[in-house]
């Protein structure tokens, strides 16, 4: 390892870390096939992370100082309606060039929890994104006057209710930043899960994600969200075939956007380096060095782009994600990974415990695992149940085909 790294001290430290990780992981998951090689790989990765972390920190320090908000920053609602009349929004008066650093204050204001989530989304798209009121209205399937009114009302509330125009102070920052990330990811999903995909929303979300990375460079979760969106969206062309959804393992990898995957990976690498350094404002990450939910989801998405897939690692990451998300859907995803690694029976055992009776994913997953076990009658029953609950047409077509293949 010293030869590999060319640095004795670093190598020693890395080896120690690798052994520590091995002691924990091998006890849990059993020893790998070639323990020596495993140790060298883990040690090398740790060392690279360390080098990267030091380098990143050195780069980020001046940036952080620049971005640290003045405590108790003033209330300047004037900026939000300094335009002429209601037709103008803050986004038009606060341009990138003129008020570059005010974009951050603006996004925190737009995503203030005192506004409804619909208003947060609309305001963020209107003032920070590049969409017109009409385009936002179309993306959310409401009429233009409705959307215009939503925006006017939201802006009026910002002013009348005293929503501050500032980056929140430290004791509020973690919660508020989580709200900002949620709005951006919601915009992404509105676009990504629609069929056909609403490209304008996906592109806006990615653009906002890039802005957040630029503005909150010390926050691992900002990088995590950008990486997650890039990696998910890289599979856009492979997700549907003849109007039917294509499961990840059946997707034609040549249709994946390789450039975007490598960008997503690069962003993720930076994130992981930041995580080990601890982010500003993200209390959980700073206290424990633990990655947050977006970083974990991005890491999982990244592992899914590799072949063969590292199922034990994917299972472990879902295990870390579950307590952060407090959602049985994460457990459902873990069950799928467990089924890939330990067999369908083990996956089914997890599914039995999940309170997701009304969610079609539970039944479609059960059906798939039962099918693999050759328990066709039960599989048919589960597919039928999933079909009763599913609302998306592309998913319905896949379920119908599977059911037909079972001779149901």
């Amino acid at each position: 390892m010293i030869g590999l790294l060319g640095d004795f001290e670093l190598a020693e430290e890395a080896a120690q870390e690798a052994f520590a990780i091995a002691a924990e992981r091998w006890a849990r998951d059993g020893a790998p096939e070639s323990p020596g090689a495993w140790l060298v790989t883990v040690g090398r990765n740790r060392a690279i992370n360390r080098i990267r972390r030091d380098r990143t920190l050195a780069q980020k320090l001046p940036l952080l100082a620049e971005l640290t908000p003045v405590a108790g920053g003033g209330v300047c609602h004037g900026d939000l309606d300094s335009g002429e009349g209601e037709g103008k929004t803050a986004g038009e008066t606060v341009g990138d060039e003129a008020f570059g650093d005010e974009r951050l204050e603006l996004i925190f204001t737009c995503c203030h929890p005192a506004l409804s989530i619909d208003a947060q989304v609309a305001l963020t798209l209107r003032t920070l994104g590049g969409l017109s009121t009409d385009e936002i209205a179309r993306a959310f399937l409401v009429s233009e006057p409705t959307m215009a009114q939503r925006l006017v009302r939201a802006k009026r509330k910002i002013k009348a209710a005293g929503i501050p125009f500032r980056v929140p102070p430290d004791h509020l920052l973690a919660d508020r930043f989580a709200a900002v990330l949620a709005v951006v990811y919601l915009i992404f999903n509105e676009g990504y899960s629609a069929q056909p995909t609403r490209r304008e929303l996906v592109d806006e979300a990615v653009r906002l994600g890039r802005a957040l990375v630029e503005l909150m460079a010390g926050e691992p979760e900002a990088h995590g969200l950008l990486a997650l969106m890039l990696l998910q969206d890289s599979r856009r062309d492979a997700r549907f075939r003849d109007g039917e959804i294509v499961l990840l393992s059946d997707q034609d990898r040549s249709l994946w956007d390789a450039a975007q995957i490598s960008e997503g990976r690069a962003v993720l690498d930076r994130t992981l380096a930041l995580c080990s350094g601890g982010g500003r404002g993200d209390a959980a990450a700073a206290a424990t060095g633990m990655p947050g939910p977006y970083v974990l989801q991005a890491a999982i998405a990244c592992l899914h782009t590799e072949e063969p897939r590292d199922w034990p690692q994917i299972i472990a990451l879902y295990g870390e994600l579950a307590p952060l998300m407090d959602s049985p859907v994460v457990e459902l995803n873990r069950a799928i990974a467990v089924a890939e690694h330990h067999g369908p029976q083990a996956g089914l055992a997890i599914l039995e415990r999940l309170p997701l009776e009304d969610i079609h994913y539970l039944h479609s997953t059960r059906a798939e695992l039962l099918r693999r076990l050759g328990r066709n009658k039960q599989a048919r029953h589960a597919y039928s149940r999933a079909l009763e609950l599913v609302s998306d047409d592309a998913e319905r077509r896949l379920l119908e085909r599977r059911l037909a293949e079972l001779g149901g």
Partner: protein
Amino acid sequence: MKFMLLIHQGDTPTPRDPQAWATLSEEQQQAVFADYKAINMTPGVTPGVGMESPEMATTVRVKDGKTLTTDGPFAEMKEALGGYLLYEADDLDAAIELAARIPAARLGGAVEVRPIVQW
């Protein structure tokens, strides 16, 4: 700016209802008193007046010039107003933080923050 904090006490325990009040531990009871005291002493706060419980309320309506009264509060009992205070603060965030410290907010009630119109 100035905010009105409307405390929707509802059916959260108060000393006026000994049975409900007894559902709180001694520690919780002490915390309720201590919190209200600290809130009333917070700079910018003008404490409201104490009100009898919503059961003591009489609701008044006028229809065709005739005064109609009903027993009880206008809102549902569990949403009824229990008190209020005024708060002079920099912005909504400060008002939200104060509201979150009001015991009723964590005991099943809620606090509504309303900006006061400046004429």
